[in-house]
């Protein structure tokens, strides 16, 4: 069983397209390269909005956080927006501790994130 699973779907909210990335399992230094590669592929599509659903993510360490921060910077440069959805307690903790949650908006649901 893979420690981390990532699935990507193209969606639309009120006529606005967005990319939904669902991350589930545990994200740490041993699979950050894979996570970064998958996220980079999506960033390369230049989405206006990239929404990461973290509700299935049980754990995230600082290297996975760096991957998300990098996505945030890249999207920002190309005029896109990154949003995070439903982090579990352990994930919410590292976002809060590093103040990453003040840099990247965090929402309770995909619908809220898509509505901006």
């Amino acid at each position, binding site marked *: 069983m893979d420690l981390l699973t990532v699935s990507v779907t193209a969606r639309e909210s009120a006529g606005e397209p967005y990319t939904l990335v669902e991350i589930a399992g545990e994200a740490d230094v041993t699979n950050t390269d894979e996570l970064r590669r998958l996220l980079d592929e999506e960033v390369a599509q230049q989405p206006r909005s990239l929404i990461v659903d973290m509700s299935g993510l049980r*754990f995230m360490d600082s290297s996975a956080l760096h991957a998300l921060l990098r996505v945030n910077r890249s999207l920002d440069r190309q005029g896109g927006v990154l949003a995070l959805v439903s982090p579990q307690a352990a994930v919410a903790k590292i976002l809060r501790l590093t103040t990453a949650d003040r840099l990247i908006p965090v929402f309770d649901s995909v619908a809220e994130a898509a509505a901006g």
Partner: protein
Amino acid sequence: MASEGRTARGAPAAHEALARPPIARPSDDEPSPPAAREPTSYPYTTDLASIRAIVQRYAIKAGLSEARAIDLVLAVSEVAANTVRHAKSPGNLQIWYDAHEIVCQLHDEGTITDPLAGQRQPSLEARGGHGLWIVNEVCDQVELRSDETGTTIRLHMNLPPS
């Protein structure tokens, strides 16, 4: 909280204290300590998920709250991640607890040369360096000893009075 621990019982004491884990030694007039007081060793390479599961189990058994257990799991995972990134050798985790605290000690053959590693908060733009800073933030006390033979980091979490 964490910084108090560092200044009051920081590096100089750590040098002595880190020489060996405090194995519980029952004396004649003391009952035998619970088995968990004996440090248990868990070698690890890249199987950090199992290390996290072990720490989680111990943390709850020792009586840490769920939120503090999350902190300890995060701290141990970050230290073990440094082993994966830098040490090029397997690491070893030891866990023990008594009525007052739970301790996780991680050892590997890597060397940390920065004496202030983890003491300052890196910017969110930084490419790395959050790991040890997080460890210092979430633990009640962190002891670090590193030389050319390896690195030992001991993480202490106070237990709530029962």
